[in-house]
């Protein structure tokens, strides 16, 4: 299938990829809390993610709710697509 993926899906995939790295480093740090290299990488990825999410949320509304990310008017949290509806 050669369907061109949307700008939204493209940005989201970039976020997914960085956040996956963060998940992996997080689990590693849980059992290697003194590993300086992993911690430095974790903090770098966290910074990148913050920027990417800010970019994404400007266009497509909040990625997280309950006070973790502001919304434009009208309340955009309920905007579709939800994750299972997105074509990657």
């Amino acid at each position, binding site marked *: 299938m050669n369907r061109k993926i949307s700008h939204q899906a493209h940005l989201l995939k970039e976020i*997914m990829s960085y956040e996956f790295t963060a*998940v992996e480093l997080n*689990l590693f740090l*849980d059992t290697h809390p003194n590993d300086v290299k992993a911690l430095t990488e974790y903090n770098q990825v966290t910074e990148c993610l913050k920027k990417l999410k800010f970019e994404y949320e400007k266009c497509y509304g*909040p*990625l997280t709710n309950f006070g973790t990310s502001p919304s434009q008017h009208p309340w955009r949290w309920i905007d579709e697509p939800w994750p299972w509806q997105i074509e990657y």
Partner: protein
Amino acid sequence: MWIYEKKLEYPAKVSGPNPRLAKIIIEQYGGSDGELSAGIRYLTQRYTMPTGMAKGVLTDIGTEELAHFEIVGTVVYKLLKGVSPQQMQEAGMGAYYADFGKGIFPINAAGNPWTAAYIDAKDDPISNLHEDLAAEQKARAVYENLLNLSDDPCVNDTLKFLREREVVHFQRFGEVLDNVQTWMNSKKVF
């Protein structure tokens, strides 16, 4: 407290509608070694764990398993998209359709609903962690079975990602077991 993130952990793609595949993939949604079992098992075992590391790893892996539950649910949802009741019946999902329609309900591939009997949570960190290590290996084995049965390369990509996560989780749980054993030995004063 949990914060939902409006994204999947990994892209879940399917090549097209495929109810026969949906019928077996659902094993990892509501089966004994599936992602729901994994998430509930770890998040339930956290409370009586003796070390910060054990509590942290169970929290984090349990949370990641819920993200996997969502990925598998998404795969099943997408595999059933555009499928008619007739096609579901022909694929062996007639009984499923009669009960749930195209809702995504946690059953295993044989049709049994998810049950808490699939998991355990004892006030004994060693037995819990051995259960978790075995659970990760069993989940890996099920993903390999599903890969042997699947004919959709897009679904295979997602299944391979999920299988790899089980291997990493197994590794982390092994480290936690060491940590808890060290802690227990340090407590033994004769």
